[in-house]
């Protein structure tokens, strides 16, 4: 700020700064390196329920609920020791009357001309509403998943019986006129499809409900198993899957198998009739303790305008008769990846193949 020499626009006067500081609707405070509040604006004081006189000389710990706010303390500690230039944390704060709210605190170190840390500036916003909305969303998603799972579970029974009685009736279908036999066959095939949908819905609900601890999982092993499982469709289509060296990730092994089985099965399935699928699986290490794995095919691809849609449950972007399926596979993939704090995205164009990229966490101890 003060050291900036080449300003094209006129510098702010002290009066400007003072007025901005006071009028700013977001909480602002200046703290000493001992984390004592030197000056706070009206919004900062109001957010915390103090008066100007009461807030002076308070330290950060006074504004945090007892035993909480370690992240906020650690941030301010790093700043005051000049180990960090500026950062932000979300933490619970405590008002003077004892009530607690969620706040977003960002802070920066102000240095003097010699580069020595001098003071801290803090920006504090009340994010309780956002936190509540997030919690509500999580809760309603969890409820929705529960309903889906219960509904699917209860639907299993009647559909199992429709299928079984249909089969018994099928044994007697010689006595039916041709139209009757057709009607019976159609209703049996609809029941089979309903069973597939219910099974898929239950599998989808399970991904989101089951939480097992993560452990190091060697994706080379996972892919080998997945290719074994898919050996039948691979042989039938004369497909080739080339798997490059893959990393060990920090994950749930069963869900990794689910993820890559779906991705590779899709890559094999969505090809021009008569053209053998060619799939490659490669990986690279990203910064931040993550790895990106890419499953790439030379199949029919899809228009990227449907990118949002393909990851939603029961959404399909191609002809159901040519490429049957319930449209749950990629929703399962997205559920798995999100469970692991990763991401999934895709690149494609019609007729140009598709590539799906998943980002997954590496084990902490990995180099």
């Amino acid at each position, binding site marked *: 700020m003060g050291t900036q020499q080449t300003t094209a626009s006129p510098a702010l006067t002290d009066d400007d700064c003072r007025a901005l500081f006071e009028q700013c609707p977001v909480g602002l405070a200046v703290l000493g390196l001992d984390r004592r509040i030197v000056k706070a604006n009206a919004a900062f004081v109001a957010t915390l329920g103090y008066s100007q006189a009461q807030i002076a000389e308070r330290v950060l710990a006074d504004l945090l609920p007892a035993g909480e706010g370690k992240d906020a303390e650690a941030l301010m500690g790093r700043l005051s020791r000049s180990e960090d230039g500026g950062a932000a944390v979300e933490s619970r704060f405590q008002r003077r009357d004892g009530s607690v709210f969620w706040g977003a605190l960002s802070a920066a170190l102000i240095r003097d001309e010699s580069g020595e840390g001098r003071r801290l500036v803090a920006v504090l916003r009340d994010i309780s509403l956002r936190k509540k909305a997030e919690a509500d969303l999580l809760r309603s998603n969890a409820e929705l998943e529960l309903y889906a799972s219960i509904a699917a579970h209860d639907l299993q*029974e009647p559909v*199992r*019986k429709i299928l079984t009685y249909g089969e*018994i009736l099928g044994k007697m279908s010689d006595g039916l006129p041709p139209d009757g036999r057709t009607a019976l066959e159609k209703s049996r095939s609809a029941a089979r499809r309903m069973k597939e949908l219910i099974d898929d819905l*239950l599998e989808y609900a399970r991904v989101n409900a089951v939480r097992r601890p993560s452990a190091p999982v060697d994706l080379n092993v996972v892919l080998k198993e997945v290719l074994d499982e898919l050996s039948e469709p691979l042989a039938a289509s004369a497909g080739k899957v080339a798997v490059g060296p893959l990393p060990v990730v920090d994950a749930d092994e069963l869900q990794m198998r689910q993820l890559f089985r779906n991705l590779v099965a899709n890559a094999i399935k969505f090809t021009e009739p008569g053209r053998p699928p060619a799939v490659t699986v490669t990986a690279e290490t990203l910064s931040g303790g993550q790895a990106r794995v890419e499953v790439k095919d030379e199949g029919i691809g899809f228009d990227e305008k449907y990118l949002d849609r393909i990851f939603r449950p029961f959404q399909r972007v191609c002809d159901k008769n040519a490429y049957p399926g319930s449209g749950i596979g990629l929703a399962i993939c997205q559920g798995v990846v999100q469970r692991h704090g990763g991401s999934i995205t895709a690149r494609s164009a019609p007729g140009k193949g598709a590539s799906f990229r998943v980002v997954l966490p590496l084990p902490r101890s990995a180099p």
Partner: protein
Amino acid sequence: MTKRTALPVDIVVAEDDDDDYYFIENSFKEAHCSNALTRAKDGEELLSLLLARIEAPGTPRSVIVLLDLNMPKKDGREALKDMRAHPVLRRVPVVVLTTSQSDEDIVRSYDLGVNCFIRKPASFEGFVEIMDRLNKFWFELVEIPPLHA
């Protein structure tokens, strides 16, 4: 394969659902299984039926139980627990036949001493195959203890 003993073995099916009992009964016929079939509609009925058999006069007979887990009044899990706590009923082979898919039910059933756990199939062929295998295993291969004190 010759069995040493040749006690007649009765099958007691603990099943509250009429449709499933119909499937079981018919698939048994289809699998050419001629053992006597008796039905209990809940866990209480199963236990009183089995206890009455112990006391019944006449030639000793053996029994195996096909047990559904989800039933009214006393469910299959409770009935199983009671059977395993009884000095005679504890030796009765129990085959769980259920729609339950939960891993917990599988573990708990074996912990309570079931002899096998089978999921109800979604096809009549599936029922027939299960009954055929049960028939070959329990009535042709293995020895079953008599049901008397």
